[in-house]
């Protein structure tokens, strides 16, 4: 029984991290109908950036993280403005292929500089437990992940739902021509959206880097987690991403509890298949594209 409670709690905490991994993918899909295959690689790229800047600027992870966000926003401008915007009007498939190419380029650049070595960002919370009883152990890192992820997702939800900027983004997502008729430059809106997605992915990159660690190719694994999260929660729904993260996290760890840790990933994705059969649009799939 203790182990069951622990698995459930750990699943929820893990889900917070999963949500942070998935939210950027969901945002880009919801706004421009683009499945960003490079999502995981970009997330890992931000982990590498943080690591580089921590070493370059005297060890402050907060400073390194701040520089990384700025840099990833610049990457977003280049990626969207010079590559994806050129092809997105021709449909989602050419743009998807572009992001696939970008993913491969990022792996190879990272592999060129860092080989296949495994890295982990320094984490001041390592080894600290917030709660430590017979029933459950809650590591500070896991709680920190859930907290940051919650804040990021709520802030993003607020921006998308309640600000003029967010409404312009939703207008562009709903109907590109009609949005242009409101005077909204949709190409520029897509650039802002990509920047927003990459800024949130940098948060994911920080949390992943501190919690799991990373290497040149680990982006693909995180892309698959992000897919699971986004498909369960509903493509394009920001709050759905949060729910999707929690469900995938809980499903994996309870799967591990009932059937053994060897199959916990399998159980997670079987849950995804079941949910997809029952509710193909995802749990909160609302920001549907026309």
């Amino acid at each position: 029984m203790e182990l069951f409670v622990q698995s459930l709690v750990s699943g929820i905490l893990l889900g917070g991290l999963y949500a942070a991994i998935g939210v950027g993918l969901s945002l880009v899909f919801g706004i421009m109908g683009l499945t960003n295959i490079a999502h995981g690689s970009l997330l890992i790229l931000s982990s590498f950036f943080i690591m580089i800047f921590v070493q370059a600027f005297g060890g402050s992870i907060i400073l390194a993280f701040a520089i990384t966000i700025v840099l990833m926003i610049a990457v977003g401008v280049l990626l969207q403005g010079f590559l994806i915007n050129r092809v997105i009007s021709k449909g989602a498939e050419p743009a998807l292929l572009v992001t696939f190419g970008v993913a491969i380029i990022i792996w190879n650049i990272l592999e060129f500089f860092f080989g296949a070595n495994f890295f982990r960002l320094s984490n001041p919370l390592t080894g600290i437990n917030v709660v430590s009883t017979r029933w459950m152990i809650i590591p500070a890192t896991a709680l920190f992940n859930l907290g940051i992820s919650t804040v990021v997702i709520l802030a993003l939800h607020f921006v998308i739902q309640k600000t003029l900027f967010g409404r312009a983004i939703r207008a562009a997502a709903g109907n590109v021509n009609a949005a242009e008729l409101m005077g909204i430059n949709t190409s520029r809106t897509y650039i802002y959206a990509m920047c927003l997605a990459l800024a949130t992915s940098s948060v994911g990159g920080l949390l992943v880097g501190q919690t799991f660690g990373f290497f040149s190719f680990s982006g693909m694994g995180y892309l698959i987690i992000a897919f699971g999260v986004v498909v369960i929660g509903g493509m394009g729904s920001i709050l759905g991403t949060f729910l999707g993260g929690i469900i995938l996290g809980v499903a994996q760890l309870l799967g591990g509890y009932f059937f053994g840790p060897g199959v916990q990933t399998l159980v997670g994705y079987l849950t995804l298949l079941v949910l997809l059969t029952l509710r193909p649009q995802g749990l909160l799939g609302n920001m549907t594209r026309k």
Partner: protein
Amino acid sequence: MNENMLMTIENLNVSYGDFQALYDVSMQFPKGAIVSIIGANGAGKSTLLNAVLGINKPHSGKVTFQGQDITGKRTSTIVSKGVSLSPEGSSVFEDMTVYENLVVGAFLPSARKKKKERMEYVYKLFPALKEKASQRATFLSGGQRQMLAIARALMSDPKLLICDEISLGLAPVVVGDIYNSILEVNEKMGLTIVLVEQEVKRSLDYSDISYVLVKGSVVMGGPSDELDEAAVKDAYFGINQFA
């Protein structure tokens, strides 16, 4: 260039691949007037609107708005100069509330400042929208969608309002109400309005100037009260086209 003209279209030609959709279309839109563009399905009305608004690019010809060449510019740029299109009713933002649709209508920086008073104005013009303000647009009736599309277009504080096929698929009573609202906007605010329509009689009745578009060419044009309804209908149906 004539100072009284808000917009002019000169010798506009538009093609889709090998198919030419518009032939040397020229039209004039005087300030403060209601101009109707009448044509059947496939006459080139939508092609013309899309070309004026930069959604498709003409291969020759010129569109001038307030003395500025706007031919083939980006849609959002043209809109920011004061041209506003109310598209056919289906293209409201379905997943957003009526209120949010209107807020987005006032996206342009020049319109943001006047958002409050413009919203009061359009709510007065279409009280049904005020009642439904917090509902998502997907739940509106056809007539209400059309009203929302027009109200949203008015939120940008335009100098020229183009209404695409208001009467499409709506009950005649509803269409009459919407037309009267448009007439009011024209009279009280002096807004120049373009009505793009299939219906001959109503277009002639409500407009000052009319153009008849047949198979991509302007076949008739002039003050609406001088155009003979029967002759327009003949042209419209392609009778005597080659006479």
